[in-house]
């Protein structure tokens, strides 16, 4: 049973949203339940704290509560429910709020900007979100979950699928590690040794400054001094690890 939480400070809209959710669950007979619909974000936090299970959340962005707006609430919720589905309801279509996506992992945005069509917008948006949650959970059940590298920094949690990772890079004497993925790169603070231990075996430390995903290697330079990745970037190989690198690669491909 998935609990659903709603937080919205406009009373009429709160009731409207609660009705829509209840109706949608009933029509499709989903295994869900409206756990709490309130205008007070603290109530939501304490409720989730009490029963920390995976849930679905619909939050208004501009809560009038001074201590906590929708995004801070989302961040708070993420502490107890890392894999929950958070959606936002907002009245501004053109907000750059989307950029928050990567920091709380937001499922969707529902825009309620035309006063005459608010009911239809909400019905469509909320319905869509719930359906996405259902299909996503089914997908998770059938396909074995895609292994992810989880990055915790103080304020955000990111899940990066291991098969998108190319390599990690660091410079000596630095705590800054750069993660190179297919889509770009990402800096974080960490230690290479801990990383090497926490990742699966096909991540190979071929150099003090490089931890390479062997699945993503395109070729090794003939003298074995560096590895070329599938996107064309290259990683150094330390002198005394050259033969081992080649051996590991051969074993891995076979």
């Amino acid at each position: 049973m998935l609990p659903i939480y709603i937080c919205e400070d406009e009373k009429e809209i709160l009731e409207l949203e609660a009705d829509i959710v209840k109706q949608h669950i009933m029509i499709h007979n989903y295994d869900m339940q409206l756990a709490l619909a309130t205008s007070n974000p603290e109530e939501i936090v304490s409720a989730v704290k009490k029963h920390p299970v995976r849930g679905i959340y619909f939050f208004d962005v501009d809560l009038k509560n001074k201590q906590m707006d929708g995004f801070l609430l989302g961040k708070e919720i993420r502490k107890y429910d890392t894999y929950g589905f958070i959606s936002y309801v907002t009245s501004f279509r053109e907000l750059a709020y989307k950029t928050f996506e990567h920091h709380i992992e937001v499922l969707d945005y529902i825009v309620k900007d035309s006063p005459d069509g608010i009911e239809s917008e909400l019905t469509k948006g909320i319905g869509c979100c719930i359906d996405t949650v259902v299909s996503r959970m089914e997908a998770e059940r059938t396909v074995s979950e895609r292994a992810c590298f989880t990055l915790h920094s103080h304020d955000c949690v990111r899940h990066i699928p291991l098969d998108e990772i190319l390599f990690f890079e660091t410079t000596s004497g630095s705590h800054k590690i750069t993660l190179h993925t297919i889509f770009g790169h990402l800096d974080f603070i960490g230690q290479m040794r801990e990383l090497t231990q926490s990742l699966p075996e096909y991540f190979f430390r071929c150099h003090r400054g490089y931890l390479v995903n062997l699945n993503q290697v395109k070729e090794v330079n003939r003298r074995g001094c560096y590895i070329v990745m599938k996107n064309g970037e290259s990683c150094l190989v330390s002198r005394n690890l050259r033969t081992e690198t080649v051996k590991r690669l051969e074993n891995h491909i076979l």
Partner: protein
Amino acid sequence: MELTLLNNFLINIPMSAIMDTLTVLTCFLLLGEKWGLKKSFKMIGTMIVVTSIYTTILYQCGFSKLPFYIGEILTLYIYMLVVIVQIRHFLKYDSGTSVIIGGLSAFIQYNVSVVAGIFEPFGMNIATKSGICLYLIIYMVVFPLFGFGIILLMKKLRFPSFIQHMLTVKRNRKLLGWIVGSFPLLLYVPEYLFERYKEQLWNILSPLAALLLLVILGLCGYIASSEIRQEKIREQERLLVQQNIYIRNMEEMQKEVRAFRHDYKNILAGLYLHAQENDKDELLAQLSHLTDTFDKGLGHCIWEYNQLANIQVTELKGLILIKLFRMQELGIICHLEVPYPLTAIDFDLTILNRCLGILIDNAIEEVQNHEKPEMDILINVQSDGVLFVIRNEVCNDIGENMQIFDIWKEGYSTKGNNRGMGLASYKRILEQNENLLSSTYCEKGFFTQELKVMKKC
């Protein structure tokens, strides 16, 4: 004891080892480069080999006996050249910077070695045993102490930051280049002139070198500090321009408010009438029209100013204002967002502004040819620092064909050659600053550049 080729070479090795180490240290200091053990070992190693070989050869060829000190001058020039090539090759700086920094550090340490020579008694002969001992004491003990002293002094006086500051201005680069290039002449020509008249009564070279060293260091310091003062004045002027832009925009908003105040009673009256007549359809249509126009006009203005008001760091606000103004001129719609007040940043603001300037300019350059140019800027205060996010849409063909890491290469740009310097220097700044974290990715047609300034623990 005969000074054979081998002996000469062996004597030269420790001497050049010390000199080269000091020179490389000076280079690293002046460049503000982080001290890398491997890099410096490579540099010092190659330099020791090269310098000991060529000094030996020059000495054996009788270069030092040439008139007019041609031999010494040439040796110094060659030494400078070696250092310059090293910087260019190992640290990968552009030629201009390499020439200036390399020349300067070579000259400083050479001068120091000459100054150390003041303890050298007259007529010392390195072909005798006691002569060699004295030579070794002077050049193994006194000279390195002097050299390190100078390096510490320069560090204490923040000389490197002066030099780096000078390097950013083209005119200064030229000037520095000329000074550096003429160093050997400056050192040896007076010596030659004096010698002719005074018949070498005392060793004039060492005091001269010391004087030259002081003059050069002082001159650089003076130029740089006056330059910094002027920069401050320019900064003030820029701030004034920014204030003007701000005020002008505020006035425009004021006008909008006045217009709205004028309108709203009429509109409300109309709504009231429709409500009285129970004309629900018309009422709803008017209401939706009202919210629409409000959102687009005044609502947007108010919202944007709320965001700007949240940036309470003047320098940063200035940069954002100027960029917003430029985007307005180019017809780019920018969604700025600063959800929480930003009161202070734990970082050098000039460097940060430079980084953000590069990132925003990148996005502008990419977006300005789009049909509907848009950009998002987010400044988010977090518990462990401040996050800047700049996001723009990319054309499909670029997004798919471009290898994202290519943009980091020097001189790479999607708009042709020689325009991608920005990102390369951005990368250099990132490497030099531990508490700057960046991430760049291209996903679902959006190019996102993030920069996080971590709080210092």
